[in-house]
């Protein structure tokens, strides 16, 4: 029988590994390591490779590791990927050590102004992503990962969630559609993810299927923390069903719109003015509001166009969106700045909040400002504005005392 080799990665990709495995029935384990940094890393490369094979209960075969300076959790993931390709029955995992300090909680109503997309198979982009302080990182398993890298990316993302500190950013994972997505969930849900983005959702049933799967996995692995959901609507059908989708699960915290696919679906060109998507965007905002969750706008894909980004965020804010996707760290700051409330918005919000406080203290059922009665949604909005102003340092957190 000719020996077959199984590979993961690309030999020329920097800050990564290329791993090759040739299974055998006898002869023990043979590990070959090629690295330019052997002087510093050889022991660790050997011990990590050996540990992975032991975790996966592999007793025979030849493992070749070409090191281009990747992270060790990537090496583990790529070894697991080739072993699972060679031995599809393997159920064991090779998990990195869980760094407890990278664990922190999320919350339903937290800010989700910026969410930074990071391709799931490119760990090097993940390492410092949290430093740029996005509200969320999205480790993407869907469109930014080629089919041949899907299996490795799933494991790299799982390991990254366990290993990397994203410095307070919400940890989101965008899974694939359909069956592949369910497989993604099995790997991801037990391991330190906050939120799952579900792509191309067109009806409530699809979302429920994902939610049910997550609840089953949670039960199996004993995960107590909730897993939040953010469905992405990317088709005419999805937009028209946005309300049922937004209300489909109590774990939904936001719905997002994806305009590349949506404009293709309705057969128009995506323009900077965005007239073609005005209906869809407004629909998403209204569905989100009526379900009591956040509305998140699409990504702005021209990384070099700072002004274009800013006006796109202003427009998103005017339409009622709470956040915007980004594909480069440099987009984070403009997004936060543009979502920040204006001075007059802050002043108005402060008055409402003070009136609300007064009503609370006096035990009044109705909040009023001067002769005007203030409705509860206005109060909620004002509280949000004040919180946003404090987080963007436009308002001192002790403003009530001053």
């Amino acid at each position, binding site marked *: 029988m000719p020996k077959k080799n199984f590979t993961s990665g690309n030999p020329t990709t*920097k*800050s990564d590994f290329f791993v090759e495995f040739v299974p055998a029935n006898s002869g023990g384990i043979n590990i070959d390591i090629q690295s330019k*940094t052997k*002087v*510093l*890393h*050889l*022991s*660790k490369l050997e011990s*990590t490779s050996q540990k992975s094979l032991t975790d996966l209960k592999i007793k025979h075969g030849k493992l070749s590791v070409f090191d281009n*300076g*990747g*992270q*060790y959790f990537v090496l583990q993931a790529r070894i697991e990927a080739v072993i699972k390709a060679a031995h599809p029955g393997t159920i064991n995992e090779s998990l990195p050590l869980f*760094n407890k300090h990278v664990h922190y909680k999320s919350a339903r109503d937290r800010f989700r102004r910026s969410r930074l997309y990071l391709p799931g198979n490119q760990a090097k982009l993940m*390492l*410092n992503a949290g*430093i*740029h302080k996005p509200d969320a990182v999205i480790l993407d398993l869907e469109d930014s990962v080629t089919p041949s890298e899907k299996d490795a990316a799933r494991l790299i993302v799982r390991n990254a969630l366990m290993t*990397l*500190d994203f410095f307070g950013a919400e940890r989101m994972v965008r899974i694939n559609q359909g069956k592949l997505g369910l497989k993604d969930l099995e790997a991801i849900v037990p391991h330190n993810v906050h939120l799952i983005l579900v792509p191309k959702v067109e009806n409530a049933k699809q979302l429920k299927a994902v939610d049910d799967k997550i609840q089953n996995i949670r039960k199996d692995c004993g995960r107590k923390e909730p897993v939040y959901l953010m469905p992405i609507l990317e088709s005419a059908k999805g937009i028209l069903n946005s309300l049922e989708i937004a209300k489909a699960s109590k774990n939904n915290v936001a719905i997002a719109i994806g305009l590349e696919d949506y404009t293709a679906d309705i057969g128009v060109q995506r323009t900077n003015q965005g007239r073609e998507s005005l209906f869809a965007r407004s629909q998403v905002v209204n569905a989100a509001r009526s379900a009591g969750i956040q509305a998140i706008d699409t990504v702005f894909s021209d990384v070099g166009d700072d002004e274009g980004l800013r006006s796109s965020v202003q427009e998103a804010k005017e339409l009622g969106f709470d956040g915007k996707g980004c594909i*480069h*760290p*440099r987009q984070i700051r403009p997004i936060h700045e543009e979502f920040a409330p204006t001075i007059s918005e802050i002043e108005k919000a402060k008055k409402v909040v003070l009136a609300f406080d007064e009503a609370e203290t006096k035990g009044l059922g109705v909040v009023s400002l001067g002769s005007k009665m203030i409705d509860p949604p206005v109060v909620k909005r004002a509280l949000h504005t004040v919180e946003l102003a404090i987080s963007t340092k436009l308002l001192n957190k002790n403003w009530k005392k001053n």
Partner: protein
Amino acid sequence: MGQKLKLIKNKAGRMVPTIVNGVKSIPFKGIGKHSPNGVKAAPPIRTCQDFPSSGDKVVSSLKEALDKCNIKNGMTISNHHHFRNGDLVMNQVFDILAKMGKKKLRWFPSASFPCHEPMIKHMENGVISHIEGSMNGPLGKYASDGKMNGLAVLRSHGGRWQSVQDGEVHIDVAVIAAPTADPFGNCTGDRGPSACGLLGFGLVDSLYADKVIVVTDNLVDFPCIPWQIQGNNVDYVVVMDKIGDPDKIVSGTTLLTKSPDRLYIAELTAKFVQAAGIMKAGFSFQSGAGGTALAFAIYLKEMMIEAGIKARFIRGGSTKYLVEMLEEGLTDYILDGQTFDLEGVRSMRENSGHVNTSPFTSYNWHGKGNFASMLDAVVLGATEVDINFNANVVTHSDGQMLHGIGGWQNCLSSKCTILPIPSFRNRIPIIVDEVTTLVGPGELIDVIVTERGIAINPRREDLIKATKRSGLPLRRIEEIKGEVDDLVGAPLDKPIFSDEVVGVVKWVDGTVLDSIFKVNR
């Protein structure tokens, strides 16, 4: 060859030889502890009547000039490195000397570059015994592997000048590539097809060498104005078709880093300079030409405009970004040690506020003061920093010697020395327990800025106090190290060094700060 030498422990706790390439050397005594006395070295007396009264010193070829210098085996040949990787002269010089059958020459460049790789063949055939000067790239690797016949002696730009004045290095023949020169030997770097800006690194050579050859591809009638090097110190002038490759001498445009992490580090550095109160009216700073340093200057510029603050002077390496600051009135002067791009060259030529300087004015140990200590802040790089703030610029963590010191050591005497560096590069941590090679003592390094936070040297209580409420991410260096160690998989292996010394690092005062050992593979 790497050499097994008797080593003693110096004041920095590093093992160093007391004899370097046959010359008695003084182990590092501590910062500011070495004050030699006596008389500086001087060139031999020369008399004007021995030179053409017409002022025409042009000879027919480089070979003729070298012939006339009466070079003997074992002599020292020097040059400046203003042509960087575009130098077309020095390989020819040693090819000619090889043909002339010369042996055991010491090459004393202010720095060497990958274009000088052919020198390896001259070291292998014995024409060059060894190189004393910054080695970048293949020559560094060659020396690191212990293949060079003598020890690599790594000096700062100021230290090179000091070594000549102390008589530690006697230059027999200096070859000065000059973008524009006249037949008398007056020359300048600010114009001509191979313009490099200035010639400051070659100034000491012109003053102290026994023989001085000026090589140009742009001969103008006397007088060459301005003259950066005086013809009165020059013996021969050689005209060649092409002395440099302009694209490799200066870059057409200097590229800013695009890395979001590096940009963030640059921005943090600028914010630190502001928060610490350094950025005030009439202040001064120096930052290099690396991507992060350039970005720092741009962030600082924006802050200066916003705060309505103007600097008195900026020290170059100049780039178009510094030139813009000069032209927009954000500084009165650029005091320039080298120009990195065409805009820098143009500005030096056209703007009287853009002044050419030399290691003597800027860095010299035996001067009556120098500019470096007057700077309010310098922004520098490093290959490694340890938890005691000691830093390394010449070797990597794997022990390979790959870079020169440049003006780096000299700059450490500024009022605030800041190293903006990524906390890891390609899974190699930059913050370590102990530097592989000590090039900068920690007591002179004040601030480390990484993408994971800013660490202030605990000795600088003033800076800690000034920035305490700045909102900047101030952290202990150990804390940053711990975080990065997790990320890179530490503890890692360490290189295993042999007991063979392949090079030494000199401190700015001429004492020996550290040794570089051969790595056992």
